[in-house]
């Protein structure tokens, strides 16, 4: 093992939203920053559904909304409950938007470029083998037979935390703590997309679908419109999926794409990309015991900093913001005697005072809801049957309560229904 000649102030592991944002802010402050990325280019190893909430990003990048690779502004939100060949949908449309769609590869590369422009050095195709620790202090990383040293290591390696595992900081991922996202990107003409979804110019749609498309497994389907493609996929709680699916998960996406109510949107398209990735789900179980150690900070998915609000995820803005705060915390520690554990505790203080931890606490009940099968199977069924009774009139017409009574027959009792309603309204 030999040390390479150069020493850095900071080594960032992973050029995703968390890593690149940390690097950007460190380089901006003049710290000698090295980003190590495993993929061929930033963004080649990460993945998301398709939408980013913009407000936090405007705070941490100058002119973000003018310069970043934004595809469409989400102005139409749909939430559908699916059962058999019917869907009951709520649609919320507005002229304003606080989120946009994009390709995560493009956004990741853009963020990494911001860091490089500020002077960070980005090396791709570098797989870090190990964090290097000396007397309990993290001092660098090991790549093959070389050691690279730095004052601070920011671990933004993502959800698959091989380095943190190796360092004994976290245990192996449990399937019960993560979800699996499976996604196709389907190429379609931009005009075609606007026509199909009733959009104009660069307005976008976000669509969440819950019900039997996941075969009753907690999770859901999603569709996002990009500039000239749509992202379509499903998310499944992995633990449940392992227990209950004995065929390839890809087939579930295929069935979703071929669903009679969905197929009309994608029929003319061509599949460009198929990808799958793990998503932090039970973030409290996932979180490392601490996010700061002597010489080490942990950010983004690796730290379990992703919010599941039940009907939407917030991953990119949470990750980027945690990277931003990690950079701030190191700056603080540097100016107060060095990156000791005590000084780096600043990171947790900053996180606790930011929307990141506040929102994670506020929505901490969601991961329990995600285990409730009734929400993903019984209620979508019930609502579609009830709506069917009300709308598909032949001779006799139904009153609302009458339809509800019929629909819930044999599915769920009044008491469970009211309890569930109460729980959902409290936790979401």
């Amino acid at each position, binding site marked *: 093992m030999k040390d390479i000649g150069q020493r850095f102030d900071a080594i960032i592991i992973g050029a995703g939203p968390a890593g690149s944002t940390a690097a950007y802010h460190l380089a901006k402050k003049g710290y000698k920053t090295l980003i190590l990325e495993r993929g061929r280019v930033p963004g080649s190893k990460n993945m998301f559904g398709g939408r980013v909430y913009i407000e936090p990003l405007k705070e941490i990048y100058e002119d973000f909304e003018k310069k970043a690779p934004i595809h469409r502004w989400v102005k139409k939100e749909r939430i559908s409950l699916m059962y058999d060949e019917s869907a009951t949908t709520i649609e919320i449309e507005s002229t304003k938007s606080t989120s946009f769609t994009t390709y995560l590869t493009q956004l990741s590369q853009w963020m990494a470029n911001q860091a490089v422009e500020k002077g960070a050095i980005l090396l791709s195709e*570098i797989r870090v083998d190990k964090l290097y620790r000396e007397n309990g202090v993290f001092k660098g990383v090991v*790549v*093959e037979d*070389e050691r*690279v040293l730095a004052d601070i290591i920011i671990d933004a390696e993502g959800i698959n935390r091989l380095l943190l595992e190796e360092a004994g900081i976290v245990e192996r991922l449990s399937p019960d703590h993560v979800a699996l996202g499976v996604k196709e990107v389907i190429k379609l003409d931009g005009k075609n997309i606007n026509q199909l979804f009733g959009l104009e110019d660069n307005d976008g749609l976000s669509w969440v679908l819950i019900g039997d498309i996941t075969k009753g497994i907690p999770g859901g389907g999603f569709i996002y419109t990009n500039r000239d493609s749509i992202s379509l996929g499903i998310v499944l709680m992995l633990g449940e999926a392992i227990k209950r699916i004995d065929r390839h998960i890809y087939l579930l996406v295929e069935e979703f794409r071929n669903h009679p109510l969905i197929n009309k949107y994608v029929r003319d398209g*061509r599949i460009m990309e198929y990808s799958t990735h793990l998503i932090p789900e039970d973030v409290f179980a996932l979180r490392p015991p601490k996010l700061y150690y002597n010489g080490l900070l942990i950010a983004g998915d690796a730290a379990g900093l992703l919010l599941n609000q039940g009907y939407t995820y917030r991953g990119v803005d949470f990750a980027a913001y945690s990277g931003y705060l990690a950079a701030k915390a190191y700056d603080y520690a540097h100016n107060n005697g060095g990156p000791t554990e005590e000084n780096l505790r600043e990171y947790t203080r900053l996180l606790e005072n930011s929307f990141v931890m506040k929102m994670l606490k506020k929505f901490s009940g969601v991961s329990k809801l995600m285990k409730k099968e009734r929400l993903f199977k019984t209620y979508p069924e019930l609502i579609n049957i009830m709506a069917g009774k009300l709308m598909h009139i032949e001779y006799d017409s139904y009153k609302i309560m009458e339809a509800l009574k019929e629909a819930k027959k044999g599915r769920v009792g009044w008491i469970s229904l009211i309890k569930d309603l109460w729980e959902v309204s409290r936790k979401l």
Partner: protein
Amino acid sequence: MGLDIIVGIKWVPNTTSVNIDPKTGTLIREGIPSVVNPHDLTAVEMALRLKDKYGGTVTAISMAPPSAISGLEHVIGMGVDRGILASDRAFAGADTLATSYVLAKVIEKIEKYDLVIMGHETIDSSTAHIGAQVASWLKLPYIYYATDIEYEENKESIKVKRILENAYEIYRIKLPAVVSIAMHTFEPRRIKVSNKLKAKLENVIEIWTSKDLNLDINCAGLRGSPTVVSAIDFVPKVPRKNLIFQEKDPKKAAKWLIEKLLEEGLIDP
């Protein structure tokens, strides 16, 4: 002492993700990332093994647009000492003849070299012409399908093992020479931080234009390319039936598969 080696690398669209436009017959390259031709990485690995064993230098050369600098950075990351990119609008549209001409001129200009190593072929065109043509331009001996090279220092020659269908041949060749390495012979080594830093920070990559090379511009690029693609024929698109056997018994699966293949007339009863 040691061997001064030149390796040729090509910057190619990652063909695993390339589609062909059925109307125009051209590759849809929009948004398709490029990579170093994987078979060339095998050649780089051979060169680096020789350097590890006998000392010397390895120089990678390529003819491509400037975006290929990341390809040269990749091989420098593996341990190559220096990269030279022949890049000029006049080189665009080249077939293998014009490409090998420019590469030969680059090699001529490098002057001090013992051995040129190439990949077997490229994944985007698979002609396997370049090694032979470069050797012809340079009037050097050429051997292909090589799987191993040994340097015989005092004799100024190499022993090359080359693979045939069911035999090996061993040749002794005088240096300088051109050798292309059989695909999949080696697993290319990983990239190191120190090497990649060198690629980024130490100006080890040079760009040579037509002005830097002593060449006849009529032999380069489109003008120097006699090859004409007269037509591209498409394999007709057969709609996929997408049948999937869902049970787990392999015997049943095999039987099912045979039945389906018989139904389609793809095998004889």
